[in-house]
């Protein structure tokens, strides 16, 4: 793996971002829109409820941003290269699939951090909710698990794009939202019907958001659940990396990298 090729791709994504309103909107507009809608609604509910619901929702939104941005960015930046047919030139260059993946992870993480800080600052300004008063170790743990899981999902979607081309580009934006209802971002696991809870309990994201709520209510964390989430995310990441490698291999076998769609 060569660092200069990873930085070349990071420059590519940077240029893409500053030249594209879509990519800039992804960082600031959608997360802030989420924060406003959910924040104001929760602010209203807070007035008629005893539970510290505002912190729970805002904490959920701020952590969700990590998962959402990182996962979506991995897929969307690959799609950008498919749309321009630039994939041909990239794959004829010495860039390896590992270098491409690492550059996507770094870009996803940088954009998530930007969204995270924007949303955190605005939620403090509007709702006096300060995520930085949390236990840093807990936040670090939550973010690490979410990042690994997000990257894995991004790799999985990217694999489908390499395998089926831009016909499946909708997955780039939609996949992450499939898991949101089961991840218990804004409500506890106990709020789900039993069939949904069975799915939710498998997802590592559920345990992270459950942990967040426990942390907000000053209750002890279930470290075993978080350990399970970390291991699950890591194994899922390794599996998705393997699937991506197989998808690129298959694309080269099918000759689809050298054929216009």
């Amino acid at each position, binding site marked *: 793996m*060569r660092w*200069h*090729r990873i*930085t*070349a*791709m990071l*420059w*590519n994504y940077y*240029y*893409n971002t500053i*030249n*594209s309103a879509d990519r800039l909107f992804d960082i600031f507009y959608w997360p802030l829109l989420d924060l406003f809608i959910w924040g104001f609604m929760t602010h209203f509910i807070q007035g008629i409820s005893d539970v510290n619901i505002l912190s729970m929702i805002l904490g959920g939104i701020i952590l969700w941003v990590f998962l959402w941005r990182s996962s979506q960015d991995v897929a969307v930046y690959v799609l*950008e*290269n498919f*749309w*321009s*047919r*630039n994939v*041909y*030139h*990239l*794959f*004829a*260059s*010495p*860039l*390896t699939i590992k270098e491409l993946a690492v550059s996507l992870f770094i870009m996803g993480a940088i954009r998530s951090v930007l969204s995270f800080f924007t949303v955190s600052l605005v939620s403090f300004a509007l709702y006096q909710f300060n995520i930085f008063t949390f236990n840093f170790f807990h936040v670090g743990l939550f973010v690490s698990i979410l990042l690994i899981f997000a990257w894995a999902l991004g790799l999985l979607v990217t694999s489908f794009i390499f395998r089926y081309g831009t016909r499946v580009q909708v997955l780039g934006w939609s996949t992450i939202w499939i898991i949101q209802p089961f991840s218990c971002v804004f409500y506890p696991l106990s709020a789900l019907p039993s069939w949904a809870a069975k799915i939710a309990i498998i997802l590592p994201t559920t345990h992270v958001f459950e942990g967040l709520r426990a942390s907000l209510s000053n209750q002890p964390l279930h470290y075993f659940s978080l350990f399970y989430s970390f291991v699950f995310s890591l194994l899922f990441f390794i599996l998705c990396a393997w699937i991506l490698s197989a998808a690129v*291999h298959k694309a*080269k*076998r*099918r*000759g689809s*990298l*050298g054929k*216009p769609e």
Partner: protein
Amino acid sequence: MIDAKNIVKTFPLKRGKVKAVNNVSLRVRKGEIFGLLGVNGAGKSTLINILSGLTYPDSGVINLFGKDLYQHEEDCKKRFNVATPYYDLNRSITGRENLLVYAKLYGVKNPKEKIKALTDKFMLSSRLNIPTRHLSSGERTRLVMVKSLLNDPELLFLDECTVGLDPDMAEIARDHIIQFNKETKCTIIFTSHYMQEVERLCHRIAFMDQGKIVKIGTGKDLVQELNWQDVHLHFSKHIDRAKELLTAEHISFQQQQNYLVFQVQNRQNVLYPLLQKFVQKNIIFNDLQVNKPTLEDYFLRRSRKR
């Protein structure tokens, strides 16, 4: 430089399969400009994609720079480059940004100077700060050509790279290819549908048909296979009598206004006696042109044989 043996590539169709490359073996020497000719679908681009590591063959061995391409893919890819007008660089960003990204990818030293020198040569410097999507197709092709020269490649794949260029720019591109080849001894694999371009640039040419290389040689070698010449005779009168004579001699011809056009295989034994007969019968012609076959004739003949 390139040593490819028994390359086979099959693509599935809705019904059955097609052999895009059918047991092709190829050796290209260092410093050679090697042309690939053939009709659309003959397998040229697939062969280039295989040689540049973009498509895996079903079977066969490819050595580039004395190394197995698939075992030393990264090493080989540092030393070659590709240009084709059919694949753009990133359309969302400017030409300069694209070139900077690729210069970094190839580890080019002094990328800004390199980009300036190349874009000056291809008359693209003033268009570098415009998003690539707003460039004309010819400008995008030139941008891809500049990209392909950034790493001073030892091997260059140019797949129909003059398509979409105006005649003046195409000439500049051809001159630059020849100059680059002479100065750096870069091996070039070149495909084009402009036969004169192929004749001018390529040291050797392979003609591909239905995935196979059916002939390899210099332009002259290929054309020599055609042992006929086109004869154009111009008549201001007597054209009907000339047609009768040609028919009597069993020579098929076409009439193009006041010209009769036919082919002869041998000047000495066929054309000269025929002309004598015209004179003997007092059939007067005003002009005579005998055209030797060109690479284009070879191409047409080969492609029509299909």
